[in-house]
Structures are given as C-alpha cells and as structure tokens.
C-alpha cells in the first residue's frame, strides 16, 4: 500500500481503483500500473506519515489494513494522500469520508480483537498444551497475541485462526507461527477428542457448563441481548454452548 502511494506521487497519476493482482480488471480502464512492493519506497512514505500523524493515527492505518476489506484500499490510499498534501494532520476530521471509513474500519478490527480475547476457549491437552481455535472475521491474531502471551505466560498454548489457516504456538518462552493439518478432527470440530484431553479437562468443561447454566436468572431471560453481545457466529467454539 505504501508503495502504491509512492508510485502515485512519482508518476503524478492517482488511481481510481486499487486491486490485488489476482482480481479481475474492471470493464473500463485507461491504464494499469502494476505495483511491486518496495521496502525503500514504502519506508519513505511511512517516514513522511510519522512526521505528520499522531501515534494513534498511525496504528489506525496498520490496524485497519488487517481488516483485509477490498473496499478499504482506495480509502486508505486517499487517507494517506490527503494527509501528505495537507499542512496539518487531518486524522480527526471525521466529516471526511475517507478518514471516516478508515477510522471506522480500525474500530471494527479492534472490536474483533476484543472478541477474540473474550471468546477464545482453551482446552487442555494431555501434554499440558492449551488449545484454542476460532474463525475471526478479520485478521486479528497478530493484534491479540501479546495479550495472551502476557496473561498466560506460564502455560504453553496454541491459538489458531482457522479461517486464515495459521496460528501461533507459545512454549512459555517464545511465540512461533504455525500451520496444522486441518483435516485432524479437532480442527474440523474445534473439540479435542477425549483421548487427547488432559485428565481433568472433561470435568472442568462440565463445571463451566454447569456454572454457565446456574448463573442465569430465569426471571430475566433475554436471548436478544445474549445474541447481540455474543453473536451466534462465535458459538461453534464456545465450550458453554456445546456439549
């Protein structure tokens, strides 16, 4: 993306669309300029942005990018250009469509990160590793890993994003990126087979389900609120929602 910006300024020609190389071209186009990511060009653009934007705005750019939304690209591109052209930072000008779109995307990605922190459930495997799997809407694993590493510093764990086919393994010292054979049953269902579980795992799952049921006040049933705060798309991997 940063290379796209650099090329646009170098060529003094600003794009109407930005696409991945594998997407089909639109019906009408005048010119296609292939962009090859170039660290040096990107670095220069980033430096220029660092001078102008606050830290929050910079993280807004990088975080929103993890949404992987195709519509984002052009907005992001114009967000960057507008700020490069302007004498002051425009990051707070939410009346501007591009700034608003990027900022809203940034918020959505952060929200999905929170949901990962909320709804990941670990199952303890026989070898002591805690196994957690999810299908987040956006690519938030890189944003969430620091939280898990700090919180569960003394336990080995695997955090897996099944939608993007990768995860992280933490061995109580370091985090490494991993991919697994997803035809294994626990990657298909999200549930560790009893033969792979630690001795007490089944009991604690049972305890948690018991707790989940007992804590509900039946005079106040409110399934609508439950679904709003914990959308059904997350239920597949929730211990308390599965037997």
């Amino acid at each position, binding site marked *: 993306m940063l290379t796209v910006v650099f090329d646009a300024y170098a060529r003094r020609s600003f794009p109407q669309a930005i696409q991945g190389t594998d997407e089909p071209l639109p019906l009408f186009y005048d010119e296609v300029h292939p962009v090859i990511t170039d660290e040096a060009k990107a670095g220069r653009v980033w430096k220029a942005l660092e001078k102008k934007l606050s830290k929050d705005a910079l993280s807004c750019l990088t975080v929103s990018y993890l949404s992987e939304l195709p519509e984002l690209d052009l907005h992001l591109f114009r967000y960057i250009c507008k700020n490069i052209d302007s004498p002051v930072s425009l990051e707070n000008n939410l009346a501007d469509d591009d700034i608003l779109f990027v900022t809203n995307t940034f918020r959505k990605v952060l929200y999905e990160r929170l949901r990962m922190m909320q709804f990941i459930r670990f199952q303890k495997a026989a070898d002591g590793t805690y196994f957690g799997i999810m299908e987040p809407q956006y690519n938030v694993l890189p944003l969430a890993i620091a939280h898990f590493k700090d919180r569960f510093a003394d336990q080995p764990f695997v955090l897996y994003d099944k939608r993007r086919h990768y995860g992280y393994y933490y061995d109580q010292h370091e985090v490494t990126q991993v991919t697994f054979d997803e035809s294994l049953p626990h990657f298909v269902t999200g549930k560790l087979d009893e033969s792979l579980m630690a001795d007490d795992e089944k009991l604690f799952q049972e305890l948690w389900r018991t707790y989940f049921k007992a804590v509900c006040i039946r005079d106040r049933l409110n399934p609508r609120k*439950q679904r709003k705060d914990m959308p059904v798309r997350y239920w597949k991997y929730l211990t308390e929602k599965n037997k």
Partner: protein
Amino acid sequence: MIHNDVTNLYSSAAMTEETLKKLKILTESAKYDVSCSSSGTVRSNTRGGLGNTVGGIGICHSFADDGRCISLLKTMLTNSCMYDCAYCINRRSNDIPRATFSVRELVELTIEFYRRNYIEGLFLSSGVVRNPDYTMERLVAVVKDLRTIHRFNGYIHLKSIPGASRELVNEAGKYADRMSVNIEIPNECSLKLLAPEKDFKSVYEPMAYIQQQTLASKEERKLFRHAPRFVPAGQSTQMIVGATPDHDRDILRLSSALYARPTMRRVYYSGYIHVNTYDTRLPMLKQPPLVRENRLYQADWLLRFYQFKVDEIVDDANPDLDLEIDPKLAWALRHPEVFPVDINKAPYELILRVPGIGVKSATLIVNSRRFNRINSSHLKKMGVVMKKAKYFITCGELMSPTVNELRPENVRRLLTPSTSKRRDDHQLQLPLFHD
C-alpha cells in the same frame, strides 16, 4: 485448610463430582448480586505468574441466557447464613440446599477457569457462619492463597462481610482488586425492617475502613513506589430496587453522595426479584422492575459522565424517574429554554446535554468541527441518534422544527415508543398487609 504445596498446582485431587453439585448450589445462591463487572485495575503479569488485568471495563467472556455479562466466577464460600434478610434467597429460614466450598476448591476452580479463558477472575461472597470474623477469615484465606501461593494476577472482587473487623478488612484489601459492601436498602428504617440483624453502621463501617486504608496506601505509594496497593479498583455497592417504597430520588441522592467519596467507583442497582414469596413485608412483583432498574442505570451515567447534578434528574416534584422516556430526554423536555443547541458553536458541555448525543459523538463533533462545518449527514455518521437529536439542535441546513416550535409534550409523544404496553408490572405494587 491452607495448602502450601506449590508443586501440587496442577493436581485436581480437590475436584470431584461433589464439586459440581456445590458449584451449582453456590452459584444459584450468588447470582442475584449484580455488582460484578471486572474493572479498573491494570496489572501486568509477574514473571512466572498467571494472569493480568486489562483495565477499562474488563472483559466479558460470555453472556448468560439472561443476557448478562459473565466476566468473573461469581460464587459463594457458603450459602449457609445465620441472618434472615427478607430479600435474600439464602436467609436462614429458607429451606434450600446448602453447601460450602473448601478454600482449596475455590482456589482451584478460579485458576483452572482462568487458564481456559473462561473468566477474568473471581467474585466471592459468603453467607455469615458462626460470626462475621470467622467467615471473613476464610474469605481472606482464599484470596491470599490465590495471590501469594499461586501468583494469580487476575481480577478479584471480594464482598466484605457486614460487621467484619477492621483488621480482616485491611488484610483482605491487600489481595483484592475491589471490595464491596452492599447497602441493599437505601433507607435505614426499611433496612432494619427487612434485615433485622443489619443496620447502616454494619454497612458504613467497613466502607469507611476500606476508604481509609485505600487513601493511606495511596499516600504511602507517593513516598515508596513499591508500597503495596490496597483495593486498586476501589469499592462498589449495590441497592435493591423495588423491595421497599423508596423513591428513585432517595436512591439517586444516596448514589450521588456515595460517588462524592473518594474510593466509591460504582453503585449497582438490582431490580428486586421476588425470591421469598411468602414474606408479606415484601411487595408482590410479578416481574422484576427491569425498566426502572434500567432508568436508574441511565441516571447513574448522567451523574458520572454527563455532568448532571442529582437534583436535575429527580427532585421533590419528580421523585421517580419517568419509565417511558430516558432521564436525559426527560430533563431536556423540562428545559426547552436551553435548546436548540448550535452544533457548530456550542461548548462541549452543552452538546453533551442533547438527547441522542453521547460522550463519544460529542467528542467527535468538537474534534471535527475545527476542520469543517458539521451538517446532519456528518452527525449521522458519527453515531448521533438523529431521530431524537433533531428537535434539540441547529446545524446548518437541518430543517426540522425544534422542541420550542413543537412544544415539549408533542416531542414527548413523538419519541415515546407506541408499545409502552406492560408499564404497570414495573411499577411498585405494595403488599396489602404490613406486619
């Protein structure tokens, strides 16, 4: 009871089918306490320890079928109790299954739930057995074990037992993030009527201990950076709504006075649930007063984040909150002279008073208007509820008539949901007989 065997960390010998039964009983008994979000502390993990707390409003890990956030393992040491508070399911005259956890069971449940990312920490209360100090001692043993033996850095909220001694309260506060003492009933006479063994002293004394110790520890930390923290997330309390004839005015005045104290962070409101149907001192409510409870929370937000004074929300002329419309809208309709507010010029405090504009959108407005004139389509994108706000603002081209042109009673009608059907079951229905 306290086990010092650190190597035994992962053994689950304490956990059995019996624990399952206890957990069910003790959670059923604890669930009516609503004051249980985890919030306020930031503590990163220590080397080799387990857990951190993230600050802010804490993380909800699940939502029960009643829609409430599950953030903490909310349970009790025991639900046996020598007291007989009329509104409480655990009162001694109730014939319900009783159970008691061992310290070890509680510690292990907390740790194992935490490791699986089920919870942020523990919320622990207890019925009173033998005497307040005996009970408090065992609660302290649980939190001390968690922090010192297991190096647990997750969130801990401990309910102080009414009437517990200062020494034990001080000891508990070294390990807990938050402590609370529930007021339950906003008026001492009603409290004594319903909870003969309690009075305001048994509630306010521990509150005062907590406050004194918190402030003392803050002073100390100014001098010695590593002096221990004392309940870093402050204290909270809870009031039951709808069990007594007290007005919202009485409740909110008490809340406002409590918030003026330096360590009081949250007041929770719990719509009374008719758990002890046989007790004629209590009103017969077919349903818990959920709308009223919700309005009280809204009013509470106005006190804490919208710079409202309690007398602006309820006073002797309006002792109860309007159930049909929210308290901010109600205030605006009583004060049409303040409106319309010019979005492009008015100060932040005034923008915050507009119905339909929250803290977030008010901040966005003030930030963005330095760059452009704000119009109504911008407002929509910033999350302003235009359906409400349009009667109370001017902003460039916006053409809707204001509250003054339409008159408050008509705006009220336009903004009252037409399906305000079941209004009466939320009103207080007084019992027919007083004893």
